């Protein structure tokens, strides 16, 4: 048992650190520290730069253009990205549909889609949830009816994040009615330019445009856009949900950024002549937060170690998702506390200047509330752990 890297990993870390030393624009930093996504253009630019180095897909095998990195290398890469205030890569193509395509897709689908995911020529979004099917995904009602060489899709999707900038969407739709609600569901890829698709913004409390309703009205899609077998979509979809939890795990590595954001704000602000960070009350809160982040990071390290050995991590992926959302919420709340009265200045009504980290800290705090709802709510994670790990 040890925490040390071997010489090769040390060398790799130096290489990654050198890359990030020059490639992260200052204007990104506060935003990513607050757990907020950069604008799509910035994310695309970042993804292309990584891909140019051959680092476009840290978790993919080499044959599909991935890095083939070991879990330790992945961990090093993400740690260094976090250290440099680089963003997390946008995950919906890279971590969700990409792996499904290279696992279950046809050679044609692989050739068509994977390279364009790697350089973010194609932006993908996910059409899973529906108004009546959130945590209970098996209740979905969107239908895909076969009509010759096409599926004709009708229905409505909710919480389709970034549909407004996406080129493609992958949807779960019902291709037949079966007794078990989980059966008869298929996974289908759709070009967002297909007639009959309509995107409608869902304004959210963080005042950042990130999610949508997606209406499907006689959307005709070639049958070649089916992934894997018809009716087996539920299984693929569940793989995605599990993978989505693992995305949280890697995102958890980025919480050190939030610690830095809080620290900066609390160093800047003074009560009388004492920096806030030196007041015992705030110092204790920040210490507590840092300690919990360390605990979570160590849990993630253990997951990585399991992955290295091909060992089963049991329910610890769900645990990391749970704790990550709690710490995202706690961290941004502490940051807002550090801002003091200026946290009320969310938007200048004229051209007055805002504090360096406004509105991102507060926007991050608001956005953070959804992290315990999406990707399987905290309540659902509890159910999963109780059932799968504890046999309750």
């Amino acid at each position: 048992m040890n925490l040390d890297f071997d010489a090769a990993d040390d060398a790799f870390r130096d290489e990654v650190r050198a890359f990030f030393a020059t490639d992260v624009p200052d204007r990104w930093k506060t935003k990513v520290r607050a757990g907020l996504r950069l604008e799509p253009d910035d994310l695309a630019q970042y993804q292309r730069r990584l891909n140019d180095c051959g680092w476009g897909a840290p978790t993919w095998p080499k044959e599909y253009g991935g890095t083939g990195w070991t879990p330790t290398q992945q961990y090093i890469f993400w740690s260094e990205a976090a250290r440099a205030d680089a963003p997390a890569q946008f995950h919906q193509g890279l971590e969700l549909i990409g792996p499904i395509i290279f696992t279950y897709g046809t050679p044609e689908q692989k050739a068509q889609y994977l390279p364009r995911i790697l350089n973010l020529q194609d932006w993908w979004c996910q059409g899973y949830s529906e108004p009546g099917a959130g945590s209970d995904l098996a209740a979905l009602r969107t239908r895909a009816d076969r009509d010759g060489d096409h599926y004709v899709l009708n229905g409505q999707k909710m919480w389709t994040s970034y549909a407004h900038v996406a080129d493609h969407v992958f949807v779960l739709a019902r291709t037949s009615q079966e007794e078990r609600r989980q059966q008869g569901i298929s996974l289908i890829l759709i070009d967002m330019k297909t007639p009959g698709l309509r995107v409608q913004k869902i304004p959210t409390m963080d005042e950042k445009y990130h999610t949508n309703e997606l209406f499907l009205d006689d959307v005709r899609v070639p049958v070649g856009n089916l992934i894997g077998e018809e009716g087996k979509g539920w299984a693929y979809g569940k793989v995605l949900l599990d993978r989505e939890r693992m995305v949280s795990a890697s995102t958890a590595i980025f919480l050190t950024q939030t610690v830095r954001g809080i620290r900066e704000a609390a160093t800047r602000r003074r009560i009388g002549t004492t920096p806030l960070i030196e007041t015992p009350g705030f110092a204790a809160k920040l210490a507590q937060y840092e300690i919990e982040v360390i605990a979570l990071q160590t849990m993630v390290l253990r997951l990585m170690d399991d992955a290295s050995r091909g060992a089963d991590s049991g329910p610890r992926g769900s645990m990391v998702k749970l704790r990550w959302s709690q710490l995202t919420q706690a961290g941004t709340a502490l940051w807002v506390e550090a801002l003091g009265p200026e946290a009320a200045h969310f938007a200048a009504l004229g051209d007055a200047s805002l504090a360096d980290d406004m509105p991102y800290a507060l926007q991050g705090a608001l956005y953070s509330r959804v992290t315990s709802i999406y990707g399987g709510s905290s309540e659902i994670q509890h159910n999963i752990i109780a059932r799968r790990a504890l046999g309750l």
Partner: protein
Amino acid sequence: MDFVYSDEQQMLRDSVVRYGAEKWAASDRLKILAAGPDAAKRRWAEMAELGWLMLPIAEADGGLGGGPVEVMAVMEGIGRHLITVPFTTCCVLVPALIAGSDAGGELLERIGLGETLAAAGFLEADSGYDLHRVATRAENGADGWRVSGAKVHVEDGADADWFLVSVRTAGGTDERDGIGLFLIPREGEGVTVEPFRAIDGHRHARLKLDRVAAVPIGDAERALPGMEAAVDRAIAAQLAEAVGSMEAASDATLDYIRTRQQFGVAIGSFQALQHRMVDMVVAGEEARSMAYHATLNLNRDASERARAVSAGKVRVSESGIYVGQQAVQLHGGVGISEELIVSHHLRRQMMLNLAFGPIEHHRSRFALTPA
């Protein structure tokens, strides 16, 4: 000892709740806020007509002389429907600050009629939430008092016509003596107002003052005790607002979990959600108790009042944020949508916590105030 509104107070509360339901329904509220200050002014005029704006103003100052309990009755309704108006600052805080002063008489009358807005600016860059840390200075020269300095945050100050600011007239930056209260017109020479919008739709300001001609209100070196008492009144008012808001958020959540179906049953049948809902309701009851405690101690001596108000602020803020967060959580995805009222309650609770000092400030004030 008695915890019941009088019939009159109950009618007052009910009428504000009714007004809120009619004029500030969730969807209308977003429209009013989007339409900007002019739309808000029309609503303000309605409230003036109903006599509510002059309610907290002393009879001697031309108001109705309503006490803390009457204010509480109004604020519950304001909170319940998230009526986004500067009632606390303009109609509770400012009148408490200038009650009985010569200079303020006319202003109070116009406030009561809804004809003018006033706000109070106390906080400075390094003051924390301590009212006695005042670096803004005034000099009394040949051309009268001139005030220079900056206030980093004026609650509800974006659209105010008048500002009451704390000013150091003597002593060092953090002494309790030597602080005066000055009235400054927005249009005064040397006044710069930088307006901001908060996440709850309230509109605040930063204030920069460069040799601004100003009128002192009361003793120019002994304003602090009065400021503290007035701010405690404002806080107590906001505690009632928070209680109204958290009860509305709980009610909406209870409705939702009773009706929303998942896995073939109402999600309110899941025990984990039931227990969470219970914790929300318990938090609401505790908050209501603390709002009473703070309000009913407002007229006691300074340290008793300070402890009661700070205790109330700590517990109501904790409860309010908890209830707001859980209301969003139990709604799931739709909880974060702008369209549903529930996240607006959370946003208001977050900002109510900040206004006049958050939990940490008041916990420490409680600890440092002798019992």
